[in-house]
């Protein structure tokens, strides 16, 4: 059978039986034959599991800056580049991006200033986030191999560039289970679907239990089939569920080898509870007017992202493990492309201003809100997109894709605030110092959650796969 659990949980020689016993939630008829933890794992793949060692991070919120923001116009200030606008960029490789670039330096068009105790340089497009720089741990030397949106997003989330492998969030819930069984453990939010779609939040070869639930901000009903049919009243449905349970129990009583039957009985109860819990979690009207205003819900230019950020906090508050928000475009007509808003090929300045407007206030509010609720002690917020941009120009005012050096930041549990880790060259073109590959980032994130990335494996088609493929080093310097 295909379902293997993290190796530390699988008892030698029992794996097959465990899997056969099903992936249910409820009690396991034969649990006396097994170790208790193993039995629990078999019965409930999303039940909380003990980590390899105590982790500081319980939940991650990843603000995915879809399309690839420019590092040299966001968090990687390069005075040398500012000085050499229009001059040749030494070592420029026209094959770096998707199109062809000019080979001439393009200075950042924004005003920059230093902020916080860390003296971090921030461009004018982030007036709100600039107040939080001392919470942020910057990884300036990120790099990966793919130079187009979908493959790079797949590499960033799944560790290698090929589709079909599980994403970080799937591995995480596979390793740790859920904290709230009434809600999905792994949630993705998007506006227009980002390029790569499901492949970016796939469970790959892991059981679909670990697939992200995608919440489309454009849809009225957030979760499929969550609402009871119009013809049903609650007491009617309750009576029906009671009868289903009764008949199912009778059926299961003569099929004791099948623990999944019991799990399926329980799944109806869980679904019934989810029917109530999920709408409550998704209901932003329960937030105070002040909170809503803090996130920017009333500002049309950032309302979508604000709702998503606030929702992310509510979900994490209720135990969701991994929330990823794919930033959509701001207001209509700002020139950005819906599925890749930060993709500033033609006009970097207006593009990044617009993207800043769309994301800055909500992201900053999320940090402030988490902090004020004490949730930043167990939640890690990540800001970053699938790659950076070229330091030389594409056309007159744009920048092309650049996977060779880009910045992401992490804030909250587990990391040192105000730290600048690694560096690109003086022009911000390539990561040169303490280079961080995606595998290293994943190893570090898993570590912060208490998982040893070398031990979190899944056997598929004859190979023990892990998120970090054959690489991955924990970045111990960034750990708090």
């Amino acid at each position, binding site marked *: *059978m*295909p379902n293997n659990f993290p190796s530390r949980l699988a008892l030698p020689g029992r794996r097959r039986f465990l899997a056969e016993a*099903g*992936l*249910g*939630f409820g009690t396991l008829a*034969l649990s006396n034959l097994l170790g208790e933890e193993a039995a629990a794992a078999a019965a409930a*793949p*999303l039940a909380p599991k003990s980590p390899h060692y105590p982790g500081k991070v319980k939940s991650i919120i990843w603000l995915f800056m879809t399309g690839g923001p420019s590092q040299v116009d966001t968090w990687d200030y390069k005075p040398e580049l500012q000085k050499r606008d229009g001059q040749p960029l030494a070592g420029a490789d026209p*094959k*770096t*991006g*998707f199109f062809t670039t000019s080979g001439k330096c393009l200075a950042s068009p924004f005003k920059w200033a230093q902020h916080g105790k860390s003296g971090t340089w921030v461009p004018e497009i982030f007036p709100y986030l600039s107040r939080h720089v001392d919470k942020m741990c910057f990884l300036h030397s990120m790099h990966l191999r793919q*130079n*187009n*949106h*979908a*493959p790079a997003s797949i590499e960033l989330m799944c560790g290698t560039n*090929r*589709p*079909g492998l599980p994403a970080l969030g799937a591995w995480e819930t596979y390793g740790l289970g859920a904290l709230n069984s009434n809600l999905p453990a792994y949630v993705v939010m998007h506006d227009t*679907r980002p*390029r*790569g*779609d*499901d*492949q970016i939040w*796939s469970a*790959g070869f892991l*059981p*679909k*239990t670990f697939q992200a639930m995608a919440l489309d901000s454009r849809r009225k009903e957030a979760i*499929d*089939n*969550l609402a*009871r*049919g119009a*013809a049903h009243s609650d007491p009617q449905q309750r*009576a*029906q*569920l009671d009868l289903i349970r*009764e*008949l*199912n129990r009778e059926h299961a009583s003569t*099929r004791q*080898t099948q623990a*999944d*039957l019991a*799990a*399926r009985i329980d799944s*109806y109860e*869980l*679904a*019934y509870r989810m*029917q109530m819990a999920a709408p409550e979690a998704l209901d932003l009207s329960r937030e105070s007017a002040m909170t809503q205003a803090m996130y920017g819900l009333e500002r049309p230019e950032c309302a979508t992202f604000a709702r998503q950020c606030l929702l992310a906090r509510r979900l994490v508050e209720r135990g969701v493990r991994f929330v990823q928000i794919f930033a959509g475009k701001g207001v209509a007509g700002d020139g950005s492309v819906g599925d890749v808003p930060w993709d500033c090929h033609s006009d970097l300045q207006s593009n990044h201003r617009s993207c800043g407007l769309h994301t800055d206030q909500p992201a900053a509010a999320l940090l402030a809100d988490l902090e004020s609720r004490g949730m930043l002690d167990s939640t890690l917020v990540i800001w970053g997109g699938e790659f950076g941009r070229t330091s030389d120009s594409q056309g007159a005012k744009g920048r092309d894709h650049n996977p060779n050096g880009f910045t992401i930041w992490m804030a909250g549990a587990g990391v040192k605030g105000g730290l600048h880790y690694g560096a690109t060259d003086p022009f911000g073109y390539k990561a040169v110092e*303490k280079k961080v590959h995606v595998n290293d980032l994943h190893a570090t994130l898993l570590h912060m959650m208490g998982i040893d990335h070398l031990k979190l494996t899944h*056997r598929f*088609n*004859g*190979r023990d796969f892990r998120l970090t493929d054959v690489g991955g080093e924990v970045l111990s310097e960034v750990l708090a």
Partner: protein
Amino acid sequence: MKPFTPAIIAMLAALAAPARAEPEGLKLFEEKIRPALVKHCYACHSAQARDAKKLKGGLYLDSAAGVAAGGESGPVIVKGKSKESLLVKSLRHEGLEMPPSGKLPDDLIADFAKWIDMGAPDPRTGEAALASKQRSISVEDGRNWWAFRPLAVSKVPATDNPVDGYIRAAQQAKGIKPAPRAAKEKLLRRAYFDLIGLPPTPAQLESFLGDSSPGAFEKVINDLLSHSAHGERWARHWLDTARYAESGGYEFDGFRPGAYHYRDWVIKALNADMPYDEFIRLQLAGDLLKPESIDGAAATGFLVAGPFPGQITAKTVERIRYDQLDDMLMTIGGSMLGLTIGCVRCHEHKYDPIPHKDYYGLASALARTVQGTKNMDIDPEATARALETHKVQGEAPRTALEGFVSTQLPGRFSAWAKAELSKLPPAPRWQWLEPVAYEAERSFLKSTAGGVIAHDGNITPGAARRQRGRPAAAGAGEHFRLTFQTHQQNLTALRFDLFADKALPQRGPGLNADGSFQLAEITLQARPLDPASKAAPVKVKLKAAYAAAEDPNQPLANALDGKPATAWVVKATAKRDNAAILEFDSPLAGSAEGTVLELDLVFKDQGIGRLRVSATTEPGPATWAGDTAGQHDSELKALAPLASKPMPGQVGLSLARWFAPRDAETAKFVRAVRDHEAAAPRPNMAEVYTTAAGGQDVYFLRRGEVDNKQGKAEPGFVQALWRGAGAPVARQGVEPRVALAEWMTDMNSGAGPLLARVIVNRLWQHHFGRGIVATPNDFGAQGERPSHPELLEYLASELVKGGWRLKPIHRMIMLSETFRQSHEADPANLAVDPENKLFWHHRPRRLEAEAIRDALLAAGGNLDPAMYGPSVLDNSMRRSIYLRVKRSELLQVMTVFDAPEPTASIGERPVTTVPTQALVMMNSSLVRQQAEKLADRARPSPGEPVAMSVERAYRIALGRDPSPAESQRMTAFLAAQAVGSSDSGRKALVECCHTLLCLNEFVYVD
């Protein structure tokens, strides 16, 4: 004394080198190299690193022996040759980038180069750790791996069905007693879902329950095996292993509208019980083995069904190609051989005897295989039949014409000629040539008045179907062949007119989406009209004389240079008519008896939308100006001298053709033949997503990296699966992919025995929930061993003996007592074998996503039985195998019940239980609608007693009658639900039916 051989000299030189280099080299080593190694390299490349589990690349740089041994990427230094040394290349960041923390200073890198050029003197002792040595894989040992041996059948048990003998022997050894036979209704439901993926209808249930003959069950099995739904059920299992999908994944996930032909082909092959070896051969090389048949093209859809990026940059093109080859190899390995071949891309297989050479040999066999589309006749037999009928019907007008030609034509012509011939105007400069035949590779042409060849738009050319971001299909260029006849001699030039037309994309003249065309080659061949003539066809040499609005970079001459890569490109910008003149190198002598001109136009993509070809007999440089007219009159003038003699058949027909515009009676007979020809039946063409020629040589890659090529690979196969002479390579003169297919199915020397084991194991797995080998896609050392090795051997050899037909194996398995056991579990057995490895009872199993949806539709009586064709969305009532499989938008109703991600070969699906499944059953409109329909089926007339409706609903949904207790509970539930409603209990019955569909029993089969 013999002179030194070169090898010995080299050895001596190597020994001498360090001595010569010292002490200067050693000084350099101690001052620069050693400190740098310690500081920058030891952390990952030393014995210490190994002990800390941080060793990288199997490379030790902490001893001279380690440096000499190299690592997984091969040797790191070539003494005396810094430029060829991987160490220096890595330090310079060429290919590898070392150290990873950042490039060392240039002067230090120069020191490393100097040190290597000095022979890399190194005083450090210590052995290269053993771990750095590659584990050598013995192919010879590999051949003895249980799964790689020839099939060997032990003594066949004497039981009625040998399957039971093998199973019982293993049970007896453990003191296990098999479960009793399952109840008839359970057995029937099991057989139906197993073989056709649908529940039995109440009538089918009744008929089986009423049949007490000993052969009743066998009859059911035979009926089900010959049911067309059988192919639909089992094709889905195979499609999992083939990672079948209809889109490219990645960036734009471009849809492949012609991909479904592969799915249909699998269904048809399984229904026809195509021999499994043929089934495999066609998937590997059907396009080459059956080039004219849609079956061949559809079958190799297998190879190219994997994901492929929609946007490719110069930087990524090569890596993507190797990824694609890897995808094909992994899928071939997993689905056909149960082997994990993909691992070998980067390193020799750690567990199975598959060295690098085998992987790249296999990859090389696929080197010339890329994805593309072909327009093919969807049902060639029907086309052939229609053409035959048409041909027979054409005999009457043709005979009439021939009769007219031999009896009346000469007289009518000479009468006319006497009076009119001399009055004809002189020949115009340009004569329109009227085609007598016209063919095209990708689409239909028709000729309109005046001999204008027009694309008639009947078949949508590929361009119109192209998806956003998809590159043009490779190797799918258009090819026109136009045939003309003339009796004139000394033609000197051709002229092409290319007309703009509102019906064309961007008004043409080309058929490409932007109105352009790219004409790669023009060739003209002339031969005598008389088929008996012995004169050889002549290739007419053409010169580019003139082309209107010519692009100097892509001129007309490009179409005459014999190079298919260059083309005459005409864009649509002008939206005007366009023209070109092609002069003959020397006038075409031709024959007074008639000449056939065959004009071939080969395009790089789509063809020309409206084309007219004219000819002239004027000597000297052809000019643009001058009058134009049809060729009739000039032909009549040329034919007149022949018309008085007894005319050969061809000449008579020609005369009729050209005389028709001048004579109504002749025209009547000619038109009858033409009208019939124009009404020729057309094949039903379809665009098939399949393999195409393309690709380039394959190289060995170190660690699978395209920047690290090691030498060209030649086609070859898995050596451990080869018992013939020499190494398994493609025979001379055989397409490597055909050779691959031969090797794969070769029982004597090749992979045949493993192929047979893997497929019979899959049959067993889908009948029992677990294979004899529990890891169906891994028969290697990492996979599980067979629980019943002798049974596996027996089934595999029965398959081969029976001509590789699968249906007899299904029959044998399902008619065994082992298959017919009840699901009941004896506690004593359970204690001994809790996993049921010995198959002592039949484990209940949850249905797959497709079977659940199909069963829901069947319960509602809504299942649309239409087979084949383009995929549909989930609002359709078709069977689930016809649902669209788009990689980025998998249908939730499928994935929620564990339909797999179609990115890699899947041998077995996980079975998960999550609340979202319960939400589908409780709240989805799909289930609710089926519950309503089921209620209507259960109570056809409102006056019926409730108990009867309940009973009928049970029979439809669960294939059995309710127990009295169940009946009672249901009736009570109905009564409670009906309180206060005024619809005579219909809604309450819907709730009852909805409840039945939500039951575990509905989605589980005992």
